[in-house]
């Protein structure tokens, strides 16, 4: 039985138009995805295609409009301590020290104060932050903050880690270090990981499998097995291996089609705007097209 299974999951957002009028925004158009126990699954897709929406559904923070998501065969009906989320950035509580942040989830499950503290300190050292337990988030760098977020999620000892572009806001160097740590920790602790990114390199480096999501409404367009071994990934020159380069190229082609779709729909949208206000539309259309292309 798959650890996580999503069958034909759809999500439609209702956007208030004023009064009792709603616009419907189909975010997910029937997502099918199976993730096995211990697997590192990465989802890539153009910006706004519904990746975060899907992750929220797996976490149980929101519920699908149709279709089902099951964990170990049981349908998800809400959040659960078997799943922990790491968000993109600034999700640490600024009023808590790093230690208190990591303890946060434990407070409802573990009444033993000293034991809680011990566990939290362990996880802080696991992510390479021992000695920083009394720092407040604003005293940490972006990379350190994400390390604390990861420790906070791990502290609950969940089976599943849900990570929504956790490294997107970091500089290239910090990002690479954290990617290696995430890979190491997830394999050592046998977690099942669902990881979202819009970086192809990150997807290839981390994923056992990479699922490519289509432009909105998002569906899984293709799932690619990444043939890299753990040993290869541990090497510094992993990006130069044949397997890495080939996977990268395949993903790039798949994604480009989706990005072009987004771009075309945006230009169509812009053209409507041009008809209404000729002066502003063309420039914006170009800027948007460039913006969408450079996102990947």
């Amino acid at each position, binding site marked *: 039985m798959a650890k996580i299974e999503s069958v034909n999951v759809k999500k439609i957002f209702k956007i208030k138009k004023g009064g009792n009028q709603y616009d419907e925004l189909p975010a997910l158009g029937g997502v099918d995805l199976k993730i096995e126990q211990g697997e590192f699954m990465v989802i890539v897709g153009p910006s706004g295609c519904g990746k975060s929406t899907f992750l929220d559904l797996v976490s149980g*923070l929101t519920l699908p409009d149709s279709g089902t998501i099951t964990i170990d065969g049981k349908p998800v009906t809400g*959040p659960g301590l078997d*799943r922990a989320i790491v968000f993109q950035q*600034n*999700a640490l*509580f*600024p009023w808590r020290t790093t230690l208190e942040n990591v303890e*946060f989830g434990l407070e409802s499950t573990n009444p033993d104060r000293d034991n809680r503290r011990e566990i939290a300190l362990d996880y802080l050292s696991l992510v390479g932050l021992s000695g920083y337990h009394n720092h407040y988030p*604003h005293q940490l760098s972006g990379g350190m903050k994400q390390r604390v977020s990861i420790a906070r999620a791990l502290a*609950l000892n969940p089976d599943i880690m849900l990570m929504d572009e956790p490294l997107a806001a970091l500089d290239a160097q910090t990002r690479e270090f954290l990617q290696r740590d995430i890979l190491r920790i997830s394999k050592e602790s046998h977690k099942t990981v669902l990881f979202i990114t819009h970086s192809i390199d990150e997807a290839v480096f981390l994923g056992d499998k990479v699922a490519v999501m289509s432009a909105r409404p998002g569906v899984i367009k293709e799932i690619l097995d990444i043939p890299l071994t753990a040993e290869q990934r541990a090497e510094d020159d992993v990006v130069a291996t044949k397997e890495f380069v080939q996977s990268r190229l395949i993903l790039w082609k798949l994604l480009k089609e989706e990005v072009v779709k987004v771009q075309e729909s945006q230009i169509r949208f812009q053209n409507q705007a041009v008809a209404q206000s000729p002066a502003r539309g063309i420039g914006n259309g170009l800027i948007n097209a460039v913006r969408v292309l450079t996102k990947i």
Partner: protein
Amino acid sequence: MESKEFIKKLKAYALKSSAIVAFILLWEAAPHLGLIDPIFIPPPSIIAAKIYQLLLSGELLVHTVASLERVFLGFIIALAVALPLGFLIGGWFKTFETAVDPLLQILGQANPFTLFPVFMALLGIGELSKIGIIYWVCQWPVLFNTVSGIKSVDPVYIKVGRSMGLTKFNLFKKVLLPAALPAVFTGIRMSAVFAFFMLIGAEMIGAHSGLGFLIIQSEAVFNMPKMYAAIVSVALLGIAINYVMLKLERRAMSWKEDVAV
């Protein structure tokens, strides 16, 4: 090293207080130069001497205590009403909030001085109406800032809390409350300042004690030095209240990044 630091600090203080010192010196010299009439605007030295004398006689203390008592009571009642109400409106009753917000905005905008006669008519001209009006003025900044503080809590904090299986109560206690605290404190500090403004006004209209009363009474008997002594005391007390509030705020939110204001 240390003495250098000290001299640097001293210089900073000197620069900061230079305008104040210049102002006081000018004020002091003005009557001697025939620029102002010392009968109407006595020089600072006379005012200072008067304050000292009022302190010794205990008169200043009596009035200050009377004023502070009123501010404190009105302020505490306002907190007791507005804080829970703000959390309820901002946190749980979204529809209720939409319904009552316009009304609250109008009530909050009503100039409290114009409402003064209403309070006097309802509560008499004794202590009750003064405390009442202070309560009225204080509750709005607390209420509005609490509601908006709760409503503008970053949704990602709530997501983290919910994903970790927090009960509604714990979500409120551990996430909403601390996240909204900075905004709540802004409201509290604003209302402390308002309370003090309002109090002096209230005491000028009908009172037998308090600093506002002292100002009006001294003016009535044309005791200008005493009047100015009371005015300066009010100003100093206002500064002190603001200072204490700031200290409390810093203390409650020591986790905050230090930003120069």
